[in-house]
């Protein structure tokens, strides 16, 4: 069947398009020939078919000849297709009964030979006619337009568009990814050619945006996804956390004054610093401050006790020792102890270690602990704590136990600590010698803990003087077991237990550290390579008359002891015997006299990764020995666990606990420290103690949901960013702290070895104040914000919330205006200009800041010395045009604004630095196309700037001579003189190219926009559709489309606003009828189409067993129709019949 029962009557119109088509195509011929085609009733050619009379001609013909199909052969349908469809509509023909042949773009403009052009034109016309006979009438549906508008990008373009729309009374969402609106324009100093200051004309716009009740501002936010279609878009927005509550912040800036962390200011192009908490510039809108955070610093993440390392280091830098101490005490009540004996995993993690050496964090902690005044450790008075009923027993007064007791007590619980020995401190006291940890420090810190009102019961050993059931009876609601690991491992040699003179390390150290007598004397052999072995050896060394030899089965490389310890031991004259271990003990009258050792060699690595020692046959040798101290490891004591079957003890005598809650099998009984870990470090014990305190509190507060919560936490701890708030996208300024130059690490003074061995005085000295300051200064602030919370303390409005997280939400709009602006080219790549190498080579944007009254120099144009400190004014300046523009290696295009702002610079320099300043302007061509631009050029010429026509080839430098400071030299060819010149100058300004945002591709994908080869967004038509895009309802404004100056940007922004407004005013949009449909009578229900549809626009109707297109969602891509073998699925206006007709047409014989 022929699509229309009515006989076909086709009118064909060939456009001359002036000479554009007629110049190449014999339009009369084509027209005459077209007249001979089937069904063609009338065929004409005319100068401009798109013109008024041209369209009128069609309308009258429709009337006169009763046409029911129209074909126009002219330009591209993408240009005038709609125009003529409208014409048809007016003439009373369904617009889809129209077809177009592109004989300009596809023929006259691209074909050399006239005959051939004419023939191709005939062909295309034939095809168009053949196709139009198969066209079918389509009616466009209507859909409501959602009146709100979204503007993406808060620069001058975005602000202008938003204001225009807001003023028209519509709600407009202004979405800016930065923390303030304003954009590049607000970074500028003056604006050409009128020289009014950017701030003076820019800030009022910002204020207007802020005050316009129709404008909803979404700063620090990004559009992550866009769905829907023209008139009906949904935007997913993600707002990054500012960590400052916008509703509360008054912008007073108190926080910034106390913030210890400085970072280069992105707003000042890194020419000045800002604080981690701050804002781009004083006039920022919103005024809300914002905190720069990247992920938690590695030191803090590594600390087993979770101490905010970067935080206290920064506070130390500010000499705020009390605050620093308080920050440490939040997590660990033993600052002085840790400052001395912590194995400092933080230093291993310290990023500084990658460039030179890690920050001496432990020493800084000690410094803080030693410096902090007495006021730094306030004892809460009775009453400060909200006293609780539930009694808690802590068993073991070691670091774990005391820490748990401390935090529980601070929560208000009555805590009793039971200690088996006569002194509190556990291993800190019995294990660690005084020369490493002076007793007064230990006593002081333990006392401080006890002073919180914690009962300490000594000489009470679990399983002997008391047991768990007993504690329950005494009404303790929870028990924390932290009895440590005090039992030494045995060598397993005969006589070990019988011969006198053999004593294990823990006993020996206990005797020494508690000041008891020790039988240790003469030739002392210490066996082992761990820290305990070192302690034992060094203690023995301090006993008059002892010669100490340390026997270790592997070599020093494999020793688990810390390097300092081994070093110290050697300095103190201890012999280290590597690759040997005792195999036989020889005694005389029950007293040890000799030890037979065997030599080892290193075999293959064992599971610990260290090479296993292998005894060498017949290498036995004998050592004289009066005292043998095995120090090959410890394990926990047996516990009197009788009566509490719930508590499970593992092979190594350790207590088994839930790894999240630290609760043993017995409800209410928790355990931690070495008892759980086996011999571990102080800082781990402290970490466990605090965690236990938290969970015991939880257990008492909510016994019901305790277990379940534990599981949740378990799940969390498995999730990647369990190490606290970690997210790559938290830093808004692209700038991170500059890579450091090498600065030597602070070293403590060590007591002279000879004096050391005289006694047990502390061997390591505290840092000097200067050392400490310098050392704290070495911190790189990896996390940017150090979360020292100093800001929280000073903020009177309590506006600061360090736990703020990103917010995701949706908005609904009818149209979208894209105003994402531009980036400036980074000239570092063009090494010949020496940017980054010479301190006085600036980029344009840097110069704007330099010259800006709110900039780093308060508007003075100054030179920098080699430390990049601003010094004096330049006597001569070279301005280099086209840096990266009009350059095939970078951007072929002209950035359009450089010539003009270069002129502006020449003027500003003359004005600010003085008219005697020599200003050389190296240009290729002066492009002063705008209103008042040429005049401005003339004015600058009169101001005495030296204009040199020629591109600068390179910037070199020459040392200063007779008092004159060193100069930069601009080498260029003066193309007017035709000679190479070298101009010595103090300062060089590079007019860097405008380029597309480096993340333009991202937002492009989100919105379905293409970028041109230059990276800028592709407009619908370069001339007639500069603000429209391929995606209906999405408009462009400003530099995201192409480089343009402020006047053009503002006009285009208003243009885009007008587009959005007219769309909203229309209230309805036509939904293109050229979408897919599926004929239910033909559909076999195979659902191939359903799976191929990129928009999920096809559903399967189970009742009828056929697929159905949702026309509102379908975008007409034709994935379905091409996959449907039966042709049940049809793309309207691209039906098989129509395609066949066109194919036959283009291939028909002429």
């Amino acid at each position: 069947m022929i699509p229309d029962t009515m006989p076909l009557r086709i009118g064909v119109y060939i456009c001359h398009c002036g000479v554009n088509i007629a110049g190449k195509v014999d339009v009369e011929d084509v027209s005459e020939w077209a007249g001979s085609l089937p069904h063609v009733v009338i065929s004409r050619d005319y100068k401009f078919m798109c013109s008024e009379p041209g369209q009128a001609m069609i309308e009258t013909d429709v009337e006169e000849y009763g046409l029911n199909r129209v074909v126009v052969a002219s330009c591209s349908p993408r240009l005038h297709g709609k125009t003529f469809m409208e014409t048809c509509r007016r003439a009373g023909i369904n617009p889809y009964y129209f077809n177009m042949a592109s004989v300009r773009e596809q023929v006259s403009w691209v074909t050399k030979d006239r005959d051939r052009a004419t023939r191709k034109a005939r062909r295309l016309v034939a095809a168009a006619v053949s196709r139009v006979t198969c066209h079918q009438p389509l009616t466009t549906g209507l859909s409501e337009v959602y009146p709100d508008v979204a503007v993406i990008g808060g620069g001058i373009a975005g602000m202008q568009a938003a204001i225009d729309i807001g003023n028209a009374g519509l709600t407009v969402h202004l979405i800016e990814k930065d923390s303030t609106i304003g954009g590049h324009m607000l970074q500028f100093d003056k604006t050409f050619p009128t020289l009014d200051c950017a701030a003076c004309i820019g800030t009022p716009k910002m204020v207007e945006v802020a005050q316009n009740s129709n404008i909803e501002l979404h700063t620090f936010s990004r559009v992550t996804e866009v769905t829907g279609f023209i008139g009906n878009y949904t935007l997913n927005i993600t707002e990054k956390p500012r960590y400052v509550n916008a509703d509360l912040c008054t912008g007073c800036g108190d926080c910034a004054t106390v913030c210890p962390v400085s970072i280069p200011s992105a707003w000042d192009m890194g020419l000045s610093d800002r604080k981690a908490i701050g804002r781009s510039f004083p006039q920022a809108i919103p005024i809300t401050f914002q905190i720069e955070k990247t992920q938690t610093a590695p030191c803090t993440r590594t600390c087993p006790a979770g101490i905010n390392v970067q935080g206290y280091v920064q506070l130390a830098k500010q000499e705020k020792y009390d605050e620093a101490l308080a920050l440490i005490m939040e997590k660990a009540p033993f600052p002085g102890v840790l400052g001395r004996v912590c194995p400092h995993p933080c230093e291993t993690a310290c990023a500084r270690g990658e460039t030179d050496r890690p920050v001496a964090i432990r020493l800084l902690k000690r410094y803080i602990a030693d410096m902090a005044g007495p006021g730094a450790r306030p004892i809460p008075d009775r009453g400060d704590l909200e006293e609780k009923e539930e009694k808690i027993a802590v068993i073991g007064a070691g670091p774990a136990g005391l820490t748990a007791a401390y935090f529980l007590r601070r929560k208000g619980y009555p805590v009793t600590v039971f200690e088996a020995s006569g002194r509190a401190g556990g291993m800190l006291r019995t294990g660690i010698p005084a020369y490493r940890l002076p007793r007064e420090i230990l006593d002081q810190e333990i006392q401080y803990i006890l002073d919180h009102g914690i009962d300490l019961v000594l000489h009470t050993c679990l399983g002997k003087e008391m047991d768990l059931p007993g504690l329950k009876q005494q009404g303790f609601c929870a028990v924390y077991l932290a009895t440590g690991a005090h039992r030494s491992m045995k060598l397993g040699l005969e006589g070990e237990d019988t011969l006198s003179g053999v004593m294990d390390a823990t006993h020996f150290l206990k005797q020494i550290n508690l000041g008891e007598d020790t039988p240790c004397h003469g030739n002392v052999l210490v066996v082992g390579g761990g820290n305990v072995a070192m302690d034992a050896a060094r203690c023995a060394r301090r006993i008059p008359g002892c010669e100490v030899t340390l026997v270790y089965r592997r070599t020093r490389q494999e020793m688990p002891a810390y390097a300092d310890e081994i070093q110290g031991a050697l300095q103190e004259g201890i012999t280290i015997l590597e690759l040997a271990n005792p195999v036989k003990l020889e005694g005389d009258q029950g007293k040890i006299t000799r030890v037979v050792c065997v030599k080892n060699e290193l075999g293959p690595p064992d599971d610990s990764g260290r090479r296993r020692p292998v005894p060498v046959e017949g290498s036995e040798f004998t050592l004289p020995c009066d005292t043998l101290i095995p120090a090959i490891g410890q394990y926990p004591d047996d516990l009197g666990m009788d009566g509490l079957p719930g508590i499970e003890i593992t092979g190594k005598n350790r207590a088994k606990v839930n790894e999240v809650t630290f609760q043993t099998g017995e409800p209410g009984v928790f355990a931690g420290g070495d008892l759980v870990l086996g011999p571990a470090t102080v800082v781990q014990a402290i970490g466990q103690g605090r965690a236990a305190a938290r969970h015991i509190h939880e257990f008492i507060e909510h016994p019901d949901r305790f277990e379940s919560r534990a599981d949740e936490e378990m799940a969390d701890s498995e999730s990647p960013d369990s190490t606290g708030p970690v997210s790559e996208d938290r830093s808004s300024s692209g700038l991170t702290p500059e890579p450091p130059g090498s600065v030597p690490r602070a070293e403590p003074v060590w007591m002279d070895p000879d004096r050391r061995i005289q006694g047990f005085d502390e061997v390591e000295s505290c840092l000097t104040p200067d050392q400490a300051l310098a050392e704290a200064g070495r911190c790189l602030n990896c996390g940017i914000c150090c979360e020292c919370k100093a800001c929280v303390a000073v903020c009177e409005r309590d506006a600061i919330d360090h736990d703020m997280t990103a917010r995701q939400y949706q908005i609904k709009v009818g149209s979208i205006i894209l105003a994402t602006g531009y980036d400036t080219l980074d000239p570092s790549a063009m090494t010949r200009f020496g940017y980054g190498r010479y301190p006085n080579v600036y980029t344009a944007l840097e110069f704007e800041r330099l010259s800006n009254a709110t900039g780093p120099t308060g508007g003075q144009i100054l030179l920098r010395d080699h430390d990049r400190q601003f010094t004096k004014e330049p006597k001569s300046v070279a301005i280099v045009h086209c840096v990266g523009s009009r350059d095939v290696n970078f951007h072929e295009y002209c950035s359009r604004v450089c010539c003009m702002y270069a002129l502006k610079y020449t003027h500003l320099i003359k004005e600010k630095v003085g008219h005697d300043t020599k200003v050389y302007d190296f240009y290729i061509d002066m492009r002063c196309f705008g209103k008042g631009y040429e005049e401005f050029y003339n004015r600058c010429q009169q101001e005495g700037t030296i204009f040199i026509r020629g591109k600068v080839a390179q910037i070199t430098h020459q040392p200063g001579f007779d008092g004159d400071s060193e100069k930069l030299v601009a080498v260029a060819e003066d193309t007017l003189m035709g000679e190479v010149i070298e101009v010595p100058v103090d300062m060089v300004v590079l007019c860097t190219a405008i380029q597309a945002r480096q993340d333009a591709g991202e937002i492009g994908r989100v919105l379905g926009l293409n970028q041109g080869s230059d990276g800028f967004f592709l407009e619908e038509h370069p001339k007639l559709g500069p603000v429209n895009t391929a995606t209906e309802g999405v408009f462009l404004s400003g530099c995201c489309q192409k480089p343009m100056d402020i006047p053009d940007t503002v006009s285009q922004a208003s243009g885009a606003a007008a587009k959005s407004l007219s769309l909203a005013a229309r209230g309805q949009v036509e939904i293109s009828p050229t979408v897919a449909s599926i004929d239910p009578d033909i559909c076999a229900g195979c659902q191939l189409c359903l799976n191929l549809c990129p928009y999920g626009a096809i559903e399967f109707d189970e009742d009828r067993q056929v697929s159905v297109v949702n026309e509102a969602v379908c975008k007409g891509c034709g994935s379905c129709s091409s996959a449907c073998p039966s042709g049940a699925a049809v793309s309207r206006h691209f039906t098989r019949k129509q395609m066949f007709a066109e194919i036959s047409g283009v291939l028909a014989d002429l």
Partner: protein
Amino acid sequence: MTQTVMEPEQESPSNTPSLNADAFEPVAVAFVCNWCTYTAADLAGTSRLTYPDNVRLVRVMCTGMVDPQYVIKAFLEGADAVLVSGCHPGDCHYINGNYKARRRIKLLKQILPRFGIDAERLRLTWIGASDGIEFAKTMTRFVEEIKGLGPCQARLQPVI
């Protein structure tokens, strides 16, 4: 960019073309997507880049719309070659139409050579909306290559 100079031809590029490569005037059909390649064609025009007139464009909304039947039809109607051209991977205006097209073309390239339609006569390219120059180059090269292949059988007798 290469500007191509065409010999003014002697006879119309229709039936009974001589097999002499110089005189042989190929006829080709290009199914091009509205958003990328057709736009590029317009750009080539606006930029006045000349290229051989032997290729006739058939505009589709997306290469994913090209039914293998269209390609077969074109050959049976006497095309010496067929080009399908759309957006670069990742740029498809309809997200992934070009990927679907690629599979279909692959299938056709498996079948058509069985019947003497050289796989080289069926081409698939990605030409972005801003690649006006690339478009002209492609057209020129396409035509040169078909000339090398000579006329396609189906053009010489009616199998339609």
